[in-house]
């Protein structure tokens, strides 16, 4: 058996395939379609201090080889999550990562403190794509200084492994990457969705009620690979790569670019159970190539730097 495991901030993941926030519910919804314990980990939807109902519909739409969403972080709120959703994950043999957001750094910290008190929570992923209400609603993640503040605030509240999830909608991803690491993030995950929009020419209304939204799916994979490659070369913490993954080959591609692990998002909707099939594909890949450690691939893209 080849070794598919990897370590992030001291935490061992048995394999690099994690399901992405907002695409795997609270962790058990896909149980009828796959053995969740096959996965390296799962990330919950973004959890906020108070429950949120989210944005008006339509809040999903299809685009060429991708989709747009503007769910608006609909979730049950941290208390309800910890009371009613987290217990269902007790017996799963997989890492549980709770994704959090807030409108202020203090809100992030408060959610992290609550979630961090639970043993079943293995790590916290900080979604910095949330609007920073104190600074006029621009996302925290588009400003390295705000990113630093948020990560720092969370770091002060919890000893859990911290992953900061970066937005691709910036001029230079390495600035946010460095800020997150300096503030104490144990790892980075990228990319969150790409800003996008579509318009129905018959009704003249936007495809999403809110106008713009987040693009995901195969269409964004080249963007994600580029950002992972850039981030991996500028920080020393592990990178979790995501954006458009749908098959084991994509995972290998992200690993070559510098990712230690990956997340599968939109593809869960297309192929429920697809994430487990990707794990099987990686096992076969390692076996057929007699690759002892999958992690040896990380960052080994062969680029002529001239």
């Amino acid at each position: 058996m080849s070794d598919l495991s990897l370590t992030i901030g001291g935490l061992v993941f048995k394999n690099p395939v994690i399901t992405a926030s907002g695409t795997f519910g609270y962790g058990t919804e896909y149980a009828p379609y796959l053995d969740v314990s096959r996965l390296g980990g799962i990330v919950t939807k973004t959890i906020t201090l108070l429950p949120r109902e989210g944005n008006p519909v339509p809040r999903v739409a299809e685009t060429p080889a991708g989709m747009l969403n503007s769910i608006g972080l609909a979730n049950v709120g941290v208390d309800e999550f910890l009371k009613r959703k987290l217990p269902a994950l007790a017996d799963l043999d997989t890492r549980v990562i709770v994704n959090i957001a807030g409108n202020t750094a203090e809100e992030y910290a408060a959610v992290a403190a609550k979630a961090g008190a639970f043993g079943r929570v293995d790590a916290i992923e900080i979604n910095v794509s949330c609007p920073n209400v104190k600074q006029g609603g621009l996302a925290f993640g588009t400003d390295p200084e705000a990113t630093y503040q948020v990560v720092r605030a969370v770091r002060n509240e919890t000893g859990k492994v911290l992953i900061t999830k970066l937005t691709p909608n910036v001029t230079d991803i390495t600035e946010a990457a460095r800020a997150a690491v300096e503030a104490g993030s144990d790892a980075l995950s990228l990319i969150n969705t790409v800003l996008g929009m579509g318009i129905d020419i018959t009704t003249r209304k936007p495809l999403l009620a809110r106008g713009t939204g987040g693009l995901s799916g195969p269409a964004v994979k080249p963007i994600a690979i580029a950002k992972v490659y850039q981030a991996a070369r500028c920080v020393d913490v592990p990178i979790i790569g995501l954006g458009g993954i749908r098959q084991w080959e994509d995972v290998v591609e992200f690993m070559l670019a510098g990712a230690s692990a990956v997340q599968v998002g939109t593809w869960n909707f297309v192929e429920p159970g697809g994430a487990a099939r990707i794990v099987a594909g990686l096992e076969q890949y390692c076996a057929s190539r007699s690759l002892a450690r999958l992690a040896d691939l990380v960052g080994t893209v062969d680029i002529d730097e001239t």
Partner: protein
Amino acid sequence: MGCSICTVISNKPVAEGLYLMSVEAPGICSTALPGQFVHVRTGDVIDPLLRRPLCINRIDSGNGTLDLLYRVVGRGTAALAGKKPRDPLDVLGPLGNGFTVRGNFRNALVIAGGMGIAPMFFLIDELIRTEKYVTLLWGARTAAELFVSSADFAPGGLTLHTATEDGKAGHAGYVTDLLASILEQLSDAGSARAYTCGPVPMLKTVQKIMSGRGIPVEASLEERMACGIGVCAGCSVNTVQGKKLVCKDGPVMNLMEIVYDE
């Protein structure tokens, strides 16, 4: 509830742009309830990417086949229209909750507009099987779309009223124009249930006409979907109890509790 590669048995136009596809899917047929839907991948491709939600139109449990009735409106349904017998079809379902068929009532009023007819054949089959008196109010754009008659259902149970926008069959106009007078005729309104599916303006009209009558009205709703199983939170709908998800809390919901904005 599962995801399986089924086999297309037949796939033919029944009116312009309107197709009926039969799919061999014994697993789905054995548990499906009227009003539930399936989430179909239209090809083994990444564009179009998402599955398409379609109601279960009818079930032949003996043969383990289910019918899908769909209108070609875009790329996904166009791809479906291109499927041939023996082609594989990736079907997720049955999903969501169904109509209430059991219960202590005698009269069933079914109000369908346009593609809203899609879930109703399965429902009517079940209503007749459980010995209800069914009145179907069916509105369509053209007479050709009224491709099924009461003779296509088990005998005895179905009274059919039709309306067409082109006026070539039945009442000329909307099916909701017929609703009020049908309600008057209803012998025993206290023991009636209503079922409806159709475009939002129609549902709003039905909601208005039915309000205050004490007849339970179940509507099969539509919303844009990604996952189809309650994960993505894409398909939300406003109800008097707050936002719910059409795919998981529906598609069948109490019409009187739906909150439509102005």
